[in-house]
């Protein structure tokens, strides 16, 4: 137990913050520090997403910090577990004692992650696809493969074919993910989709974005920020909030395991499963022991793939497990209990981290009434959090 999450904070989640991302970041961090009663001047470390437009130079000015440590995590949503892994390592090695991690984005009003404008260049009156990534790179963009959701639509189709199931079965499983997460959002007043429940008829009436994915299968686009405070054990034991220990972490990378790719293993593949097995061994837990799991849900199919990668279902069977038990209160291990990216907010995984901490503290709006650790996973990166 070398580091713990001691504070959590978030702004309002909306589609029109009418504020700068800088302002949002400051508020989320202020709330996280207030949550645990740490004086802002005691922070000595900062870990952020490389994608964040709010950088270290801005925040040290806002808070008057004199940092001893800062670092960044790449590949977008892979950063949700990775910021905790880096903060934990910084604390464990004595490079910092109190580390703030955050993500702030005007994901609807400034940079829409569901659209391609952010990833294409412009030259001579034409749009330019650069690099070799899919979506939007030179080998994908000219063909109209331009958004993460389109790539994940191809993951979903491949999953269907490999599982040997009919499209109807896939769609029913995806709809159950979307509907159950939306139901959790009805219990979470902070969720963007609070007050807007979803049933199967409404799901099926949703427009197809990229087959087989419909609009309800895709992450929201949200303005908002979330932050956590990670601290050394002596600090964690001195504050009023219950410590949530970072008991194991993996920041995995191998060929084509970057956050979105078309060339590598499907994200329930053997290398992902090996990463998960080692993580659970280090945490001395079994997947079935988990209280809950926060599985990075840029799209609904990511939940099925993540359940299989992280041992909540055997390969090719998550669709059936979801049809049988859902992913809410009736699931053996409930998933994305705040509503997740599909229905709470899209804060690039930091809102999943915050919800994992709430589950460990017993303060979730959809609290799982069972002890045990909580998983936060995003592709090949993951952490296990324990009360």
């Amino acid at each position, binding site marked *: 137990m070398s580091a713990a999450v001691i504070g959590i904070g978030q702004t309002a989640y909306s589609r029109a913050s009418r504020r700068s991302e800088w302002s949002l970041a400051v508020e989320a961090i202020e709330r996280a520090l207030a949550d645990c009663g740490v004086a802002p001047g005691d922070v000595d470390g900062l870990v952020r997403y490389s994608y964040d437009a709010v950088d270290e130079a801005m925040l040290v000015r806002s808070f008057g910090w004199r940092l001893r440590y800062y670092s960044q995590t790449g590949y977008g949503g892979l950063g949700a577990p990775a910021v905790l892994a880096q903060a934990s390592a910084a604390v464990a090695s004595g490079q910092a004692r109190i580390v703030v991690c955050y993500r702030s984005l005007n994901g609807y009003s400034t940079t829409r992650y*569901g*659209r*391609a*404008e952010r990833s*294409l*260049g412009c030259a001579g009156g*034409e*749009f*330019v*696809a*650069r*690099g*070799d990534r*899919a979506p939007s*790179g*030179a*080998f*994908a*963009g*000219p*063909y*109209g*493969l*331009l*958004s993460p959701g*389109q790539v994940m*639509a*191809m*993951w979903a*189709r*491949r999953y269907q*074919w*490999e599982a040997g199931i009919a499209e109807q079965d896939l769609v029913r499983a995806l709809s159950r993910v979307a509907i159950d997460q939306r139901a959790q959002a009805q219990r979470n007043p902070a969720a963007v989709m609070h007050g807007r429940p979803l049933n199967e008829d409404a799901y099926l009436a949703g*427009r*197809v*974005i*990229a*087959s*087989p*994915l419909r*609009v309800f299968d895709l992450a929201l686009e949200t303005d908002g920020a979330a932050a956590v405070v990670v601290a050394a054990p002596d600090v964690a034991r001195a504050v009023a909030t219950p410590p949530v220990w970072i008991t194991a972490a993996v920041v995995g990378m191998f*060929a084509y395991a970057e956050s979105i790719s*078309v*060339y590598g293993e499907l994200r329930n593949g053997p290398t992902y499963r090996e990463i998960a097995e080692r993580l659970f061994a280090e945490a001395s837990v079994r997947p079935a022991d988990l209280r809950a799991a926060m599985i990075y849900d840029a799209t609904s199919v990511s939940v099925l793939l993540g359940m299989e990668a992280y041992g909540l279902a055997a390969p090719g069977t998550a669709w059936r497990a979801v049809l049988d038990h859902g992913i809410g209160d009736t699931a053996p291990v409930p998933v994305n209990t705040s509503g997740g990216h599909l229905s709470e907010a899209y804060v690039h995984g930091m809102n999943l981290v915050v919800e994992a901490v709430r589950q460990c503290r017993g303060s979730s709006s959809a609290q799982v009434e069972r002890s045990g650790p909580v998983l936060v996973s995003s592709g090949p990166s993951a952490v296990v959090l324990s009360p």
Partner: protein
Amino acid sequence: MTESTLRIVPEATEFNAPYWTAAREGRVLLQRCVDCGLVWHPPAPTCPGCRSHAVSWVASSGQGTLYSYTRVEHSVHPAVADAVPYLVALVELDEGPRFVCTLIEVDDTSTLCATTRVTVGLGPAAAGLQLPVARCSRAGADDPIDPTRPA
């Protein structure tokens, strides 16, 4: 509906220029390791199998199997606003690598499956250029697609 004048063009680099020269003619060049024979895509400076620096270009047969696809119904960029709905295929070429391209001339997507054979050749890519695109192979033949056949 008006013809879109917006296009998405690939940025060629000095290291992959041969690829794009061939691609504009409808041919797919793959990289092949001179030492171990591994073939890969997209291009990279060294062999991802044996780390050899001796890298050559080989022409793909253009024949492959459908690994996955999606029918894009919602445009996410002005350059494809007039192209929706369109199909994007992920093709597993017979040489091994996967290859992304637009899939054209499919009447009924319910016939597409993991054993669907495709042929890659020059055609209209979704974002405005003529590039290697996929068509379903005609049953029982790997004949070249008739370039005069109407889309």
